């Protein structure tokens, strides 16, 4: 099975900051890590490769430094990786990012299965996977926690939402997004680290992947970040008195008021 894992380099939790002018995340000079959700997607790919054989290629879009995330993936068992890096890609929202990734994946010759982490910890949108499937014209299932069956032309996957569990039949090729599982993703190995260090990571520009500049980066991004701010926490405690019935009525009244405020 030929698999592609989409990987993103994100700021380490302790070092994330927002540029006050552009309202975007400051990435230069910050400690960066591989998006934790993507490590779970990679782990699932590694498990599938163990069952069926095949290859796992990582793809990412970002600054040249983002190649480190691909090397991290290789050190954990990925076969190789490709970096999309070009000023044309800069400032991309999820639509422009998924477009660029789709062009890169097509240049790679496509795959039987494309895996993404459920979301990235810096953007929290969970949009890339579904948008990528749309860009590539492939079926997709989001929030996969387990692959129950794997065949040449389909997968049977399980996904779990808050109160809902679904078992879905998914024809291949397809895109899935993967949630964090209780299983800890594989750590890098000595041999993986040394292979990753020497791995050649191709760097592709927008022109290399035949991307339309109008659909890339800031120009191709309909999302406008108007303002980024830390939410003001509002906490107000009120003790309801009386018997249970009175308390319930008072609580219902408070709920109505809060809902009216939100409308």
């Amino acid at each position, binding site marked *: 099975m030929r698999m592609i894992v989409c990987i993103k380099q994100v700021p380490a939790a302790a070092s994330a900051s927002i540029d006050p002018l552009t309202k975007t995340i400051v990435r230069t000079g910050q400690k960066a890590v591989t998006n934790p959700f993507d490590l779970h997607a990679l782990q699932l790919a590694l498990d599938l490769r163990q069952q069926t054989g095949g290859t796992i290629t990582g793809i990412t879009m970002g600054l040249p430094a983002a190649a480190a995330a691909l090397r991290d993936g290789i050190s954990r068992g990925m076969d190789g990786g490709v970096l999309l890096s070009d000023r044309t890609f800069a400032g991309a929202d999820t639509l422009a990012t998924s477009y660029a990734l789709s062009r890169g994946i097509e240049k790679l010759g496509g795959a039987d299965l494309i895996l993404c982490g459920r979301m990235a910890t810096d953007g929290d949108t969970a949009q890339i996977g579904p948008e990528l499937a749309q860009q590539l014209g492939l079926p997709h299932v989001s929030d996969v926690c387990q692959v129950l069956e794997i065949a040449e032309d389909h997968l049977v996957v399980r996904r779990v939402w808050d109160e809902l569990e679904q078992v879905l039949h998914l024809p291949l090729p397809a895109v899935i997004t993967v949630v964090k599982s209780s299983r800890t993703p594989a750590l*890098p190995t000595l041999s*993986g680290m040394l292979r990753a260090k020497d791995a050649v990571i191709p760097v592709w520009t927008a022109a290399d992947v035949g991307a339309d500049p109008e659909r890339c980066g800031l120009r191709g991004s309909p999302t406008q970040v108007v303002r980024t701010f830390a939410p003001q926490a509002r906490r107000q405690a009120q003790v309801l008195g009386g018997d249970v019935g009175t308390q319930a009525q008072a609580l219902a009244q408070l709920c109505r008021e809060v809902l009216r405020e939100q409308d």
Partner: protein
Amino acid sequence: MCETQLIRPLTGGDAEYLRDESKQTGHAVSISFPETEAQVRQVMEETARQGLAVTLQGSRTGLAAAAVPFGGHVLNLSRMDKICGMRQEGERFFVTLQPGVILQKLNRAIAARQMDTTGWSEQSLAAYAAFCRAPAQMFTPDPTESTASIGGMVSCNASGARSYRYGAARSHVTAVRGVLADGDTLSLRRGQVFAKGYDLTVTTDGGRIISVRLPQYCMPNCKNASGYYCAPDMDALDLLIGSDGTLLAITEIEIALLPAPAVTWGVTCFFETQQQAVTYTHGVRQLPQQPAAIEYFDPESLNVLRRQKAQHTAFAALPDMDDAYGCAVYTELHCDTEAQAYDLLAQLQRCAETSGGSGHHSWVACSDSDRDLLYFFRHAVPESVNMQVERYKQHHPGITKTAADIAVPDGCFEDMLALYDGALEQAGLQHAAWGHIGDNHIHVNILPRDPAELDAGRALVAQWAAQASAMGGAVSAEHGVGKLKAPLLELMYGKEQVQAMAAVKAAFDPGWRLGRGNLFPTEKEVPVCE
């Protein structure tokens, strides 16, 4: 605070102050929690008037029962927890602190460069400003229990994994000040007072001259926390470090910081057999660049973790281990550059392959989250063993874990390992061993399932202590002697030398009040197991 408030009778609510992590329980009549050196002096003077023995306590994380009282008064120093100042000498920084400062808090303050500087001198503030601008610093002693107090660490010359490269607490303590049993104070700074041969004289702040003839035993040529440090022409400060709360109550310590490495990577290599792990360790020790730590996990340690991971959700995050993995060696690399670290990785891979292992059967942690995972792995072993012992205690409340803290000189480790294996196999005791293989020092833990196995385990530890002593090893390499290992000291040094050690104590503490039962066994009063 008046005396009556400072010293109060021990009540039922103080039960926790009668025990420490050794799981032994003692008894006492009164307790105090001084916050200043003046209050420590008050306590010493008042208890001297009452003729009470005084047991010193920090955060009670010790494993040798040094903080468990044998009657008398408990002087708990945990509220003396301030970082008092800083000093700069060239590019090096030195921190002065009270004994109750917790290691974890100290490390966080150093890493974040956030210290409460209230009341600091101008000189300290200037050094602190330079420290905040300087490259990152660290305090290297890292005992497993990060809630240990610095005073406790100095008292038992604690070390931890990174002592392989950086040495134990002694190497990083540059001054100690404390209160003697009579209330007088003594300050010693490294490089200022030395013994003349084996004759050592120190002068207290009150003008009392303490002259001692140091014991003339040969210090073991390995990691050691067994009794007083004694050597010809030694620095007087080294006598106080590792004195197990028997000479004075430490009230102020100065520690030296080191520049933190730019790159810290952890590497765990798995092997099928113990012999492969030992061969790998030999190879790693020969590398031109010394790792910070080399730690071992025996087959039973890995099995304990496998069981914990399967049975307890709290351990579910442990990484999966192949069933073929028999044991593991963890190596921590501290490097200036990533290129240097990669070079070391290549050398570790070669060591693994020539030892019968493989670069594929390994974990490497470069990121904070992966390092945390390996840290969790390392600490889950003792935690899991403790949980197992707790389960056995439900059936036999009197039992407790029995562990060896023995180190031997280079060239003797494999012999010692063979003695451990042979005895354990013959005794049929449940056990797990892990620890500082780079220092020829592993902790063999026996998990007794009933009182008979507890006795058998204790007998084995005593037997190993004698065998290690015959090899020139140490009966306690890092936990200190306290009360639990006190009977082993004679095996190591001989009766005459222990008596010479007792004479040193008597010179500092003529009333024999401090740390009664530590280092020197007291037959009359024995702590009881919980």
